[in-house]
């Protein structure tokens, strides 16, 4: 940097620019589509629904209306329990822009019982360093009057006290 030759007018400038802001912003409208709308409207009623593929029999949640493997509509709707197994997790220790959670917190992939794809949500009511794969967890919902068509209607998942799930039960989802 020292070998750069500057014109006179730049030589004595106090605090030369060394950093610039280059923000990127996407402002758009999200259309949930039929399947995810059904899912979110059920969430507003404190229910979790998935959809089963008629070919491979896998149950997807949140449903997208089609099986990504078989390419067929997933029209059979399945009412799901509010309990599942942690298949993977991340302890967040780093502050970032737009963050609302207190540090540290745990974001996890949770395989609801009877489903074949995990859902991402928060794990609370347990120290971050005790969260582990196979941990059995249950959904904690917001008060009924605050329910809405959003996954934020589930405040978080917490350990439900059951023994850890056998690895075989979630090995396809890690």
């Amino acid at each position, binding site marked *: *940097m020292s*070998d*750069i*030759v*500057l*014109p006179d*007018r*730049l030589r004595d*400038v106090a605090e*030369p*620019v*060394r*950093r*610039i*802001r*280059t*923000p*990127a*912003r*996407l*402002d*758009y*409208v*999200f*259309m*949930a*589509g*039929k399947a*995810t*709308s*059904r899912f*979110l*409207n059920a969430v507003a009623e404190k229910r979790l629904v998935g959809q089963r593929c008629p070919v491979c029999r896998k149950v997807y949640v949140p449903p997208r209306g089609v099986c990504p493997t078989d390419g067929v509509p997933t*029209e059979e*709707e399945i009412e799901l329990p509010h309990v599942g197994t942690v298949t993977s997790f991340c302890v967040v220790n780093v502050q970032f*822009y*737009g963050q609302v959670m207190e540090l540290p917190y745990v974001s996890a992939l949770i395989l609801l019982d009877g489903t074949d794809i995990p859902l991402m949500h928060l794990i609370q009511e347990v120290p971050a360093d005790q969260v582990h794969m196979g941990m059995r967890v249950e959904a904690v919902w917001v008060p009924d009057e605050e329910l809405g*068509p959003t996954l934020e209607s589930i405040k978080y998942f917490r350990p439900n006290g059951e023994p850890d799930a056998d690895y075989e039960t979630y090995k396809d989802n890690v």
Partner: protein
Amino acid sequence: MAEPELLVAPNVIEYPFSRTTGPMIGAFMTALREGFIVGCTAADGRVIVPPVEYDPDTAEALTEVVEVGDAGVVASWSWVREPLDGHPLDRPFAFALITLDGADVPMLHAVDTGGDVAAMATGMRVRARWADEREGSILDIACFEPEGAR
């Protein structure tokens, strides 16, 4: 299954990136903040604006920052009929490649002709309209306008 009520929601994703400039773009941004424009001298003697750290032909490190004019000639342009959010002007304008006086390579910026496409022409002379408050950003030049417009 019954047709669900389709859900629609506004969504904004925003990344607050910032980046270091390096010595050349740093000099360029500093000059903009001070109200003038600099380029650099390439290995073959051409003056490139904005300045670059390495020669585009030989890849050797470039070190000589030189001042150029804040007026120049439109080398090419494209009319923007409906400006979008984030564009430098909120009325129709031209994005133009402008070869500044003393430079050999054109630089991209906006030209404001008051919304009049007929006032745009390749070869026309334009001059920078400086922003009132400058912070070391390409938008320290609010836009270019036809020379003699004000």
